[in-house]
């Protein structure tokens, strides 16, 4: 299309409905958008890698702390959340198929199930986080943390169980050794909350994206030549799933 084309106002001219003016063909538009999404996913992977490297350094330096700290994470809840995310990835991939084939009602259903799974994931995460908060299983700098070096939190009643397990673990240690251990336990939970927290923020952003897709799908906007948004949204969602696939064994399954 030459720039000499004077009819900026004429929207009756001959190009497919969903083709933006700065692309020649739908295929070029699709490939361009997808390339941009992959470039974004690359930055996401590098973004998370900082925390994964921090995890690796701390775990290699203090393996006994990570082994002990992992006992306070609920494997059943972690595994349930893994399955929930895998199912949501399946429904997201199915949604792309539905959009490609123009199956609007199935598309809406699959997006809705994806959203439901994401909510379930965050719900389970909330149960885990609130338990840790009440038990004082937090990073060392937190005033409510068992591992606060200046004034360790002392939980009462039912919430004291985990605290007693920690006390038992450090009972036979020298004073400086137990201090070091408690300090590193604070680091373990620091890494835990940073990694799962950053991942959780991504889940929340994904939920916003899926809600937006659901709204557009309800208006019947998606079809065989216009499914890029669903495709790219699903790619983001799969990345969130990929990160969790590594987080689950690294945090919950330390033997």
């Amino acid at each position, binding site marked *: 299309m030459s720039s000499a084309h004077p009819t900026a106002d004429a929207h009756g001219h001959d190009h497919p409905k969903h083709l933006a003016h700065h692309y020649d063909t739908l295929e070029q538009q699709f490939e361009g958008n997808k390339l941009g999404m992959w470039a974004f996913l690359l930055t996401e992977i590098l973004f998370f890698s900082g925390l994964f490297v921090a995890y690796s350094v701390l775990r290699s330096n203090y393996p006994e702390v990570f082994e002990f700290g992992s006992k306070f994470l609920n494997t059943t809840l972690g*595994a349930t959340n893994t399955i929930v995310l895998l199912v949501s*990835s*399946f429904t997201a991939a199915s949604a792309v198929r539905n959009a490609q084939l123009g199956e609007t009602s199935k598309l809406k259903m699959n997006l809705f199930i994806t959203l439901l799974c994401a909510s379930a994931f965050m719900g389970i995460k909330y149960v885990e986080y609130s338990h840790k908060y009440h038990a004082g299983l937090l990073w060392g700098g937190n005033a409510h943390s068992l591992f606060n070096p200046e004034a360790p939190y*002392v939980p009462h009643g039912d919430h004291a169980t985990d605290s007693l397990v920690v006390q038992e673990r450090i009972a036979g240690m020298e*004073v400086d050794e137990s201090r070091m251990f408690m300090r590193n336990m604070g680091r373990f939970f620091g890494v835990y909350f940073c990694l799962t927290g950053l991942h959780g923020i991504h889940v929340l952003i994904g939920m916003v994206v899926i809600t937006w897709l659901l709204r557009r799908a309800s208006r019947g906007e998606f079809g065989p030549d216009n499914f890029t948004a669903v495709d790219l949204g699903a790619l983001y969602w799969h990345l969130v*799933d990929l990160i969790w696939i590594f987080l689950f064994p690294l945090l919950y*399954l330390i*033997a």
Partner: protein
Amino acid sequence: MTVHAHDEHHGLGHVLPVSTLAKVLGALVALTVLTVITGKMDLYGFDLAVAMIIATTKAVLVALIFMHLKYDRGFHGFIFLGSLLFVGVFLAYTMTDTAQYQGDIRQFNQQSVAEELLNPLDDEADPGAGSPPGNEGH
């Protein structure tokens, strides 16, 4: 308009059959169950390796099928692998570094703990420091 021979439909991208998606989900769930089981076993020092092999297998399935990389432009896979390569470089150099200075790190940690024990709180004069503390948070 020419139609690609293997494409289920015309147009952009590749349409995945439901059966393929379902099989991948089945494999992913099975691998999750497997990693929980092996995670509870004592694998004589290979625990982390086994867990990472299973996680990587799951990641490959998600990337190749759910994320369409198997059917996509090779360049997208190249970007993905490129990011992982640089994560590898980041990790390898950092781990080499932390291993190199292990002795210094231990020494520093011991010293700082020892100093903390000698001067419990230098910035605040708190008579209760050192003894099992009260609950200052909430």
